[in-house]
């Protein structure tokens, strides 16, 4: 490839010389020194994900880079990680949607947008920029499009799942199919596609399509499910929960409404692994959406699934879905109350097996930084329903967590990345039991860019 490149340029320049024109050639010193593989010392790999700036500072669309160090190095503040200069650029036209195996030895990626959008790739983590691609090519694009929302299920790294919803407004022709003038809006049909991907064998496991109606009363007002994401398995592994965003149209005009009463948070429950028989459950505790953004939004703990919600007028809640696959409306865990702030919004979160979790959030008091509202981390106790802002981590106004994707859970410890847009930061390791925070390796940043987590 490289030889070919030089050959072509030489040819073109030679042509210029035929033309008696001395053309100045450009410097093509594209040879890069390669970095020696870093041998793992002990423990697990910690893979840092870095999102380079595209057009706008903090947009993360200029390439997603990954770089791995041992957990010892990750905890060592004298270690410096320069993922933007030394990382592997993950194949994805826009910010990649990454997942890792529970032990950190494998990275999973599904390319987001572009010609290979929907392609699944799997890498063996070998330290530094060394990731060996394993498995065969498979794509979920035929089922859920080239910009898929996917996550890994917690079934021992066996399955990934991605979802898609398409909507169509339906109208009542009033018994006169030929006369369209008396047609009225009746409801919006939302069709859900769910695909499951065999992460081990790189193949499609299952795909089903189903209609996901709301109640007739809600539909008459113009409410419908407009976006879905974040499939999570229940404890019995016989149901899949999928988060939902509710939108609304004005039934009179079928134009979208922006200022409407927000309904109780909803989740789609469907049979697993058949992916059939969907029902919608509604919380009376939380209002707002449950589809999260780029990070897993609900987790199994102690037999129940705990789910964060977003855009809740009362501030984000962590909601609880019990083994009976219904919301436990006696469990009321409001972040505003727990943190003593207003407008808390959970951007990403992750519990350890002990019921303590790290929550990335913003609230009304967040400063407006270069890429949106400032983010914070809190240590949360799912049982005690308490949340404490972690003050040992510095919070610059340009530190934002909207695109945050990755937390490493290693026993009681949770690893996070922290760096304001365009500035260096660090890995922080939080002991969820003691609350002790360890400042880890330095994260070397580059202009307009940020880190989207550790895996």
């Amino acid at each position, binding site marked *: 490839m490289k030889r070919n490149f030089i050959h072509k340029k030489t040819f073109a320049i030679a042509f210029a010389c035929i033309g008696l024109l001395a053309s100045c050639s450009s410097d093509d010193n594209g040879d*890069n020194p390669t970095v020696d593989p870093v041998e793992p010392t002990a423990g697990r790999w910690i893979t840092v994900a870095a999102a380079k700036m595209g057009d706008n500072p903090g947009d993360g669309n200029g*390439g997603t880079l990954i770089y791995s160090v041992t957990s010892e190095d990750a905890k060592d503040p004298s270690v410096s990680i320069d993922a933007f200069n030394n990382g592997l650029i993950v194949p994805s036209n826009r910010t990649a949607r990454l997942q890792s195996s529970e032990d950190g030895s494998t990275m999973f990626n599904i390319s987001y947008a572009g010609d290979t959008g*929907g392609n699944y790739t799997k890498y063996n983590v070998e330290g530094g920029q060394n990731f060996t691609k394993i498995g065969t090519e498979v794509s979920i694009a035929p089922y859920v*499009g*080239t910009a898929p929302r996917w996550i890994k299920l917690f079934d021992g790294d066996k399955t990934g799942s991605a979802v898609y919803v398409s909507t169509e407004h339906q109208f009542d022709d009033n018994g006169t199919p030929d006369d369209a003038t008396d047609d009225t809006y009746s409801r919006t049909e939302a069709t859900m596609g769910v695909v499951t991907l065999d992460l081990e064998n790189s193949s499609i496991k299952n795909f089903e399509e189903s209609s996901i109606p709301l109640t007739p009363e809600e539909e008459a007002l113009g409410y419908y499910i407009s976006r879905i994401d974040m499939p999570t398995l229940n404890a019995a592994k016989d149901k899949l929960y999928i988060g939902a965003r509710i939108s609304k149209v004005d*039934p009179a*005009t079928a134009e979208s409404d*922006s200022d409407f009463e927000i309904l109780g948070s909803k989740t789609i429950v469907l049979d697993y692994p058949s992916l059939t028989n969907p029902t919608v459950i509604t919380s009376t505790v939380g209002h707002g959406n449950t589809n999260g953004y780029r990070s897993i939004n609900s987790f199994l703990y102690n037999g129940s699934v705990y789910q964060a919600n977003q855009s809740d007028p009362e501030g984000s809640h962590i909601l609880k879905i019990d083994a009976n696959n219904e919301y436990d409306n006696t469990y009321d865990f409001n972040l505003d109350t727990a943190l003593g702030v207003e407008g808390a919004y959970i951007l990403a979160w992750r519990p350890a097996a002990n019921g303590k979790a790290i929550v990335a959030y913003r609230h009304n008091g967040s400063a407006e930084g270069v890429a949106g509202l400032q983010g914070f981390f809190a240590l949360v106790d799912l049982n005690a329903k308490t949340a404490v802002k972690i003050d040992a981590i510095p919070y610059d106004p340009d530190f934002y967590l909207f695109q945050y994707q990755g937390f490493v859970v290693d026993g009681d410890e949770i690893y996070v990345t922290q760096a304001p847009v365009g500035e260096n930061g660090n890995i922080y390791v939080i002991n969820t039991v003691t609350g002790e925070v360890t400042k880890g390796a330095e994260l070397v940043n580059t202009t307009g860019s940020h880190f989207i987590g550790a895996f």
Partner: protein
Amino acid sequence: MLKIVSVLSLLLSFSAFSQPAENTKTGTVTGTVYFKNGNPVAAASVFTEKPIKHVYTNDKGFFTLEDLPYGNYTIAIKYYGKEIEKITIKIDKQNTQIKHTLNYNETNELNEVLVNGKTKETEIETQGFAVNVIKTEEASIRNIQTNELLNTSVGVKIRQNGGLGSEVSYSLNGLSGSAVRIFIDGIPISMYGSSFNLNSIPTSMIKNIEVYKGVVPVHLADDALGGAINVVLHQDAKTNLNASVSYGSFNTLQANLNGLYRFEKTGFTVKASLFHNYSDNDYKVSGRSVVVTGLGGVQTPITARRFNDAYRSTGGMVQVGYTDVKWADQFLIGVTGSDDYKEVQHGAFMTITPYKDRFLESNALLANLTYQKKDLFTKGLDVKVNSVYGKRNRSVNDTVSWAYSWNGDRAIDFRGDEYQYTWRSQQEGGPTLAKIDRKVASVRTGVSYDINKNNKITANHFYSGIDREDSDALRSVLENTFKGTRDLHKNIYALSYELSAIENKLKASVFGKLYQQKIISIDPDIAQDEDGNAIVVDEIVNSNKKYEGYGFATSYAVSPDFTVLASAEKAIRLPNETEVFGNDGDNVVANPSINPEQSNNYNLGFRFGSYKIKKHEFSIATNLFTRNIKDRIGLPIETSLNIDDELILYVNQGSGTSKGIDAQFNYTYNKNFGVNFNLSRFSLNIVNNGIEIDVPNTPFFTMNGNLRYSFKDIFQKKSRLNLFYTMYFTDEFSYLPEQGTNTVGDEFFKVPTQLVQDFGFSYAFPNKRLVASFDIKNIFDEPVYDNLSVQKPGRAFYFKLNYSIHKF
């Protein structure tokens, strides 16, 4: 209509009735927001955070926040690019009114500059503009498309998403998209739609193509930020006829006929041009996304022929009138009609899910009027009017829900069954039969007057109007009823003054342009009449904008074979209807206070030659350029605040710079051997929020060259054989911004270096009326890409016959 109104009112009352009962009382806050100087603030964002309510102020600074439960509130007011200001209020009654004056003023006023100018119109090439004039004479007898011809011109880069008829983007010195305006005889090509464009118009209809880079003379005045391309159609008034037909690879057939007949006595003239293009575009493609998917999703790479990419365009122009008569050099009235059909094989990228039976159709029917007269009434007063008026329509058809594979057959899913996409169409987003009908009108009027031999003034007025109507047969009448429409009217006035001095060694012109744009947004909504019934009313909002630009062009002949040229312009691109009024479908809201994009463009050129040494003759021309853009229009990034709401609006984002050099070299020997070579290199940076980046996905270095050799009397006496060789070189570029020094995985995003070589010959028979030509494109069958992984045609052969009569 009455029926729909009553049904709507029923529905309204129903929905009001079914609202959940409110336990708490709620109130409404209305208010007005002013700037420090007392002017009302339009499009300021006004919100409460708990509960989240969000509105924008209207043009009068007025807003309403409804349904706020009684209590204390902090109301935040945010104007783009400024600090949030907060007001605390208590709501304890139904209506609360507030008035707020911001601590700052609007800062987007433009500096007003007026230039008194006068200009000339002839001999523009020597006026100092950075201009290429591309001759079509040779191309018209060969198998060369207009776009290919443009692509070989220095500083111009064409990027095409496939074969004949596919989508094209034009870039001039690094500026592309709506920064480049394209005209046919001074009328924007967009008036004609995609059926009559540079993909369909044969080179034989064209006299020449002018490419103005950065600085655009008044006869093409428009909001052209980065330059203009003007296709000049034939204007001779001599009886002639020419016809040609070309056939080649991918079942490509191109035929055209041009004729003009003038009655010598009366000057009555009939002029007609017809064209027909067809191609299957079934060229071979391969690569990372060209695969066939089997059980479980297993992928097998294949080399496939494109199967849904055919293109057809047919059209013509007929004009009648008088030429070279006392009262007019040209007075012609006519009709332009065209129709095209284009299948769409894939979206912006070639993915593993190729489209089947998605196609676009467009047609246009426009009346045209041309009037030209030199020395009207008095010597030195020239008048030229070009106008079109008519309709153009475009439709998208995508209703097939079955998935297809790159081998052209139905695709199978992981179970081995044929399947339908969840979105029930080929392109994600759902089935569509969308139709956009536009009524278009455009008039360009130019008047110039020679005050004396050395001084000239030119005035030019340009109007264009688009009245647009959208509909989709797959949507309900209700949805189509409430879909907003936007009408756009643009008036541009330009004036220039042109001077030649120091024995014509110095030529200079200065010009000023006044831009006026009116956009009318019509958004049907529901209101109540005096009886309380719901009725549909059109909410009409106007946006009126006025801006000025100015510039100059000058040349000085230091010696007969060395000329220095300099030109500069403060150029503008007016925000389009979506940028001003948003787009309901994409959740983009209006920003009536958006500013135009602006650019200060500079060119400095040198021309050497031509030098003659015995039978050798050569010349060199270079141009150095910078384009300093500010107020680039774009969308802000997605944040947790705007992800779920309709809160995104187009904003002026930051600045940008394109800097570079164009160079051209020409050599001829004994008039039968010729070499042309040109290169263009630039760097393009943008600054957003104070951070500068190199714009990715930009081919920044291109070279083109061609050789021709001509033999006389080789097979037959008086015959002529021409041999041609052309090469196009584009340096590697990346879809991603520049990465770190030691990263891996970069190659995935690279558009590789490309070198395409064409070879051809033409043979003119002794009677000079018949010319046959044969061309091989991409001789070495290189994989060619203008855009990341979108492969263009490989090796192709074309044969063409031309017949022309110039004397009857």
